[in-house]
């Protein structure tokens, strides 16, 4: 069914259902994402947007449907999810840096252990990434000594160190003090400009406007509307989206 041509979506989500107990967190969600596309998912809390994102790298196991990443079914237990996850960088709301490791060790751990890079190669790669996210001077401190914004930028560098094809962002700025949101968004904009495929759950509408190729609005586990940010923000069709935008803008 998957032909290996350039038009094939890099992520293909088909009729996905996910239940938490009796609650359907995702109801028959289908979505194709093209390589290089920047998709921003918005919606009220509890709408299932984080669940959808976390399903893509199987941090949540879906109950029905299929999710193909680069043509491989992530729910198929014959595929090695640990290998597939290397291609799916993830950034969390709570950063989740490894507190017992320095910034440099956080970024080099996975490349050294999983990609079998030499320490030198991994550190060169890490320094380049830390420079890119603007904290190369903090390489040898522990995460607890960094601000939230700095920690999140390290977390982005850590995910990029595996050279993933896709980056997933799960509300990356929601746990940050307002004055630190900008520095993290700058890094993400920079990343988007480099052509990285990005799926981002966020409440930052400014970011969605500037970066997104497509904005997706979710509520009650369903995709209610999607389109270009211009179209969605200026001419929302679905009443729930209109109501949502009124509340937050």
């Amino acid at each position: 069914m998957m032909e290996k041509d350039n038009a094939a979506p890099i992520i293909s989500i088909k009729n996905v259902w996910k239940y938490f107990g009796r609650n359907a967190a995702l109801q028959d969600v289908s979505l194709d994402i093209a390589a290089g596309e920047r998709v921003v998912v918005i919606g009220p809390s509890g709408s299932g947007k984080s669940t959808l994102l976390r399903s893509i790298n199987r941090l949540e196991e879906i109950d029905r449907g299929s999710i193909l990443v680069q043509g491989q079914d992530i729910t198929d237990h014959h595929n090695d999810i640990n290998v597939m996850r290397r291609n799916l960088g993830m950034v969390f709301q709570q950063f989740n840096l490894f507190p017992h490791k320095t910034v440099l060790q956080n970024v080099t751990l996975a490349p050294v252990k999983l990609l079998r890079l030499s320490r030198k190669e991994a550190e060169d790669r890490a320094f380049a990434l830390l420079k890119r996210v603007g904290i190369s001077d903090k390489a040898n401190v522990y995460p607890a000594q960094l601000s939230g914004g700095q920690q999140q930028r390290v977390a982005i560098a850590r995910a990029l160190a595996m050279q993933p094809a896709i980056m997933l962002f799960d509300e990356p700025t929601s746990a940050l003090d307002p004055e630190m949101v900008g520095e993290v968004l700058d890094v993400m904009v920079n990343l988007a400009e480099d052509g990285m495929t990005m799926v981002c759950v966020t409440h930052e509408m400014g970011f969605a406007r500037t970066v997104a190729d497509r904005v997706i609005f979710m509520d009650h586990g369903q995709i209610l509307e999607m389109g270009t940010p211009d179209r969605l923000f200026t001419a929302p069709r679905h009443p729930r989206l209109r109501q949502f935008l009124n509340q937050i803008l």
Partner: protein
Amino acid sequence: MQDKIEGQSKGNIVMVTEENTMPDSRDGQSKNTIIMVTEGPSIPDPREWRIVNAWSIALVGAIVTLCCLAWFRPDPYRDILTFVPDGLAATFQVTLLSICCAVPLGLLTGLGRISRHRLINLVASTYVEVIRGIPLLVQIFYFYYALSGLLQLSRTAAAVISISFCYGAYMGEVFRAGILAISKGQTEAARSLGFNRFQTMFYVILPQAWRTILPPIGNECIAMLKDTALVSVVSMPDLMQRARSYANNTYLYFETYTVIALIYLIITLLLSKVVSIMESRLNYYDGKR
């Protein structure tokens, strides 16, 4: 902001309170969880700066008492003090061997208890249930006398095996609680990078869990040293056994057991200080406030 997992001790049974170890409460736990087990001496707080505190009073008191007794009443006391410490070697031998067996056993048990594999989980849980329900003294008798027809264990072997089995179960609970106290986000971060379960445990979770686990494990080790006194019942020539034979020969029960109590006290107080120092060394990555 520190959560505390209080351990209640009933005799030998260390229980970690329900609400903090139920699997469904994994999420909201802080990384700074302290597992407190009230068996054994309390571990001195590394931040304690006062010179006069319970620990120093007990230690100085014990040493001064022992010295005074030896100095002013040399007749029985100096004699006891030269006779009894021969047992120290056996006490330490049993303790160290038991620690070497019980800590790995505890780690395996703890991992087994949180395993998603049903059989492994069941084996580990059953082991803990069975061992916790049987007094250590009975276990020692069991390995040395009841199984003697089957196994022909030496005294040392029977002592080490029974103590290791017993403490392995308790330590398993400590390991389990310590591992569960690490936030789920750490596991998710590691898994999202491509680490498998095993790698996640060994590169990310256990290195962090150590510092939560170490103080109660150290405490268990000290409690273990105290419990080696029980092996004197199978005539293991430890500190306690030496004291018993001295007292039986001289009828100086009061004097002998006073000395023994003070010796045990001094050892455990010193060891608890060692654990406390190790604990503070483990906090290197906390960051400055």
